[in-house]
């Protein structure tokens, strides 16, 4: 009887010795270094501000064009650059977006959740600053910092404390707007 049991135990212990590599759980990189800014628009795709035919700055349009390019809408961006310009307000931009069948989202209420969403989903958004006189692209927002791409100086990202940015934005009508398409993929980790 003892021999039986020993033999059975031996058989059972020998089963399952083959290692199946695919069943080994994947332990990928535990800490992933997030790209900063999350909306890392290549320099060549950043649209500079320009003076429109009514001698007005086109900061809103420049910001939208940069975001369109980041979201893969190159032709739309080129069309926008050739068609629109000058100063802009929420209703005017919405009317143009509707006319061009552009998919977009915006807030005029200074809703922080909106700008958090825009950066969390890596789309970015245009936000009003300088009391509503200017629009820049918000390209990063985390617990401490906000990254701004100013169309008057597209060569660098300006970093400001998060709370300071929110205060400035809310004091500038709290308008934020973005096209809603597919953001560029993150750099491979």
């Amino acid at each position, binding site marked *: 009887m003892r*021999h*039986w049991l020993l033999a059975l135990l031996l058989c059972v212990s020998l089963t399952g010795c083959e290692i*199946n590599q*695919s069943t080994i759980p994947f332990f990928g990189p535990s800490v992933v270094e997030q790209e900063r800014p999350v909306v890392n628009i*290549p320099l060549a795709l950043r649209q500079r501000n320009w003076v429109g035919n009514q001698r007005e700055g086109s900061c809103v349009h420049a910001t939208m064009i940069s975001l369109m390019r980041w979201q893969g809408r190159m032709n739309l961006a080129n069309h926008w650059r050739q068609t629109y310009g000058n100063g802009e307000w929420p209703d005017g931009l919405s009317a143009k977006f509707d006319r061009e069948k552009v998919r977009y989202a915006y807030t005029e209420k200074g809703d922080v959740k909106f700008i958090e969403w825009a950066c969390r*989903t890596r789309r970015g958004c245009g936000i009003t600053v300088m009391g509503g006189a200017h629009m820049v692209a918000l390209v990063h927002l985390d617990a401490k910092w906000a990254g701004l791409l100013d169309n008057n100086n597209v060569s660098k990202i300006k970093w400001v404390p998060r709370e300071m940015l929110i205060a400035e934005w809310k004091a500038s009508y709290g308008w934020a707007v973005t096209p809603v398409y597919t953001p560029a993929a*993150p750099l*491979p980790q």
Partner: protein
Amino acid sequence: MKRLLLALCALCLFAAPCFADATYGVLAEERVINLPNDQGKWYVSVVGNAQDAQYQTILKWFNTNPSLRKLKNQVHFNAVTTDTMIYRDRYSMNVKGLPTVRMQNNQGVVIYEAAGKNLPFTPEGLYAAMADGFNKVQGIRPILPWRRNHVCPGPCPQPGPGPGPDDPTPDPEPQPIDDGNAPVIDQPVEAGLPPLWLMLLVLIVSAGAGVAVQWKETYAKK
């Protein structure tokens, strides 16, 4: 008559602010309300030369092959050509060849990548390779090739209409807006297997029976 006029005037006075409020409320309404919480979506990039036939073929697969098309609709899909700034700035230094198919999770971690001659030459092969990458990350064992046909026992879905003309210039069709997350890769094979405890039981019983028979053959004569 005077009373009637007075009543009309009073009605106008009180009703006007109500209409104004209603108009103001409509004007203040947000046009897009349901923002897609798709920060968890994965990314699939197809990178290549716009004139390259292999690149164009792979792009077509993502429109015509049902599995790849389903995957495409679950991820942020980027078709990137080598003549764009996005390619020069974000892909040229990290692709190993052209064309490249790369799948990344929402953090940017590469889950699957193949380029040039390392790419499968059928859409089914490409999907299977991407599914293998996905499965490894999820800790799921791969589907054995001979089981793959069991995926669709009934009539298989028909491919949708083909893509438009081969002109890469137009912007791609906008992808659906949804609260995406990691893509769902079909894993139907798991359901077809018996439970683990049953397999173990059968294994132990058969091993025991085999040992018993051999034992008898060896020692019964003595």
